[in-house]
């Protein structure tokens, strides 16, 4: 459906404005939120060499970002409980618009664009109950709110689009939180799931973990080209009884929980923060800022290597291997399971490193 306003807007866009691309934003390969040495916050564009392509101030601490597939536009999400998301023009640093969730709704840190870049999906909760929603915003019309869907669970966090489609997979973390102070309210009874939604928002598949892992909050996702979903978890059970922190799932199968040798069980301190496949899709890495560590697994779920790095946080595919950011200002490569720092600055990188694809 084309509204009159949308039609005029797109006509104006086509005729009056030069069409900008990510090259106009310095050709960043990644986005990351950060805290600067003066205590302010910004969204950074980072090149494959770990250098800064752009830096745009943010009003408060950011969490994750999502990049428009073609236009140099980034959505910067506030930390949970999120009362704003900001659409940034990364070519000139301008704030294009600011998204506020409807009354009683909070953003929950992540978002994704539709394949054609027309729709932005945002993970959201109903503030009083933590019931999950997926917000829909029209990226062709100044990001106006156009609807919302049920996310299929409590406390959705990350969401990703499956390759070559507009189907979504949502990490419903299962944790109900206090709308003001993030206090966790339902640890004893939580039931996280992975929810698959088709392009019209119908939940087509709801995947739960085995009962002994119900306290393993599914929080972050990485998707392989064949739509295998790798999910990173945070263990809310007894920290002396560690659980797998990586899972792999392909629709139609049961989820695979990826264990580690006893010598690696405690390294991550029950916390996986970010997750990424390497560019070949044959390896998947999870990071733990709490444990100061990265773990790398094979595509079949076998543990391959552990790397210690203080405050290891954002991770994304590099040209080969992975690119890692940490809360002490370093950007490092991990090639053949070996870490090399390529840039070290005073910018403290936040939880996630988002690859532009």
């Amino acid at each position: 459906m084309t509204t009159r306003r949308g039609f005029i807007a797109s006509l104006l866009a086509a005729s009056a404005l030069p069409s900008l691309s990510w090259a106009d934003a310095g050709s960043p390969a990644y986005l990351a939120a950060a805290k600067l040495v003066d205590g302010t916050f910004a969204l950074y564009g980072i090149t494959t060499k770990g250098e800064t392509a752009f830096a745009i101030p943010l009003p408060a601490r950011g969490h994750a970002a999502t990049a428009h597939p073609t236009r140099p536009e980034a959505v910067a999400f506030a930390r949970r409980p999120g009362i704003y998301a900001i659409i940034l023009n990364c070519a000139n640093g301008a704030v294009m618009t600011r998204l506020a969730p409807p009354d009683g709704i909070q953003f929950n840190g992540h978002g994704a664009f539709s394949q054609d870049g027309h729709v932005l999906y945002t993970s959201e909760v109903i503030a009083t109950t933590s019931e999950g929603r997926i917000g829909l915003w029209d990226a062709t019309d100044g990001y106006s709110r156009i609807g919302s869907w049920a996310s299929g669970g409590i406390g959705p966090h990350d969401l990703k689009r499956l390759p070559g489609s507009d189907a979504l997979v949502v990490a419903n973390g299962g944790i109900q939180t206090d709308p003001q102070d993030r206090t966790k309210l339902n640890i004893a009874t939580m039931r996280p799931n992975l929810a698959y939604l088709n392009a019209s928002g119908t939940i087509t598949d709801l995947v739960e973990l085995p009962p002994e892992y119900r306290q393993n909050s599914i929080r972050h996702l990485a998707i392989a080209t064949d739509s295998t979903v790798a999910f990173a978890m945070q263990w809310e059970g007894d920290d002396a009884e560690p659980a797998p922190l990586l899972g792999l799932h392909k629709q139609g199968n049961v989820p695979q929980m990826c264990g580690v040798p006893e010598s690696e069980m405690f390294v991550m301190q029950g916390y996986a923060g970010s997750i990424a496949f390497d560019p070949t899709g044959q390896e998947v890495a999870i990071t733990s800022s709490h444990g100061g560590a990265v773990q790398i697994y094979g595509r079949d779920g076998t543990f391959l290597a552990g790397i210690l790095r203080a405050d290891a946080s954002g991770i994304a595919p590099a040209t080969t291997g992975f690119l890692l950011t940490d809360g002490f200002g370093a950007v490092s490569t991990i090639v053949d399971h070996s870490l090399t720092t390529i840039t070290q600055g005073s910018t403290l990188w936040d939880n996630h490193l988002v690859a532009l694809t």
Partner: protein
Amino acid sequence: MMLRWLALCTFCAAPLHADVTEAVDQYILPGYAAFADATKALDAAATADCTAATVIPSYQAAFDAWLGVSVLRFGPAEIDGRSLAIQFWPDPKSLGPKAQNALLRAQDKAALDPTAFAQVSVAARGLMSLERLLYPSDPLPAGDYPCALIRATASDLARLAFLIHAEWQTDFAAALKTAGSPDNSRYTTQAEARQALYTALITGFEFVGDDRVGRPLGTFDKPRPERAEAHASGRSLRNVNLSLAALQHLAKALVPIAPATDAAFGRAFEVAGNVQDPAFADVATPQGWLRAQILQQAIWAARDATIAEVGAALQVGVGFNAADGD
């Protein structure tokens, strides 16, 4: 003029801020040397005579020495899970007893060869495994296998302690002390080296408070004395005291003058002295539970004072993301 400036600056900075070199030379290297010596003595004692009564004194001394350095959860002790191979605790799923019982049942002599034993699950090795053999809750199987297992476990501990100490001496001490120099690829800035030590310090408080005291404490309605660390050997409270002493040693090596931290440690040792049962068995009584809980609170107060004073003097924090969730 230049020289005078330098002299002045050195003079000003020294008392406030002793830092990484002092921590390595005064705390870490002597600590690992003592642990290597104590486990070597344990190995020798077990080789000479594997009966529990003979091995126990050197076992207790080796455990003491381990607590001097167990907070250093980085560097050579973390390679190949060595820290866990030295002490696999807590172990609520009883992975250690299960793996050890499997060895005892199979009487697998080949697994006791030093090279083979180094490949045995970390849960079946180390101080906690030795405790089960020296202070068994059920009689050990007849025959000479338990004796051989005691010897293999003691010898493995000595091997691990020797390796960690040697790697600190030949490599890791220098990496920390020369942090920030151009040819140092491990620590590219001095701040990074300070950070590693400070993280070990704060994580150490968490382990003493949450695990060594917190696990037996459980809740007031459901205390868990059976979860106390090393209760069979009667070491639970001693382990708390010795790990606090190690944390204080590290904090003082990093930042010698920290009066609020000193006072908070003093208070923690004082309230630890009020705990009646060396194995925390009395947390099952209301009075015993409260005394242990007061100890836990004193540990948190010492941690908070350390963050405020030592963290500020070192100009480091626990990490931008490590301190909270997503």
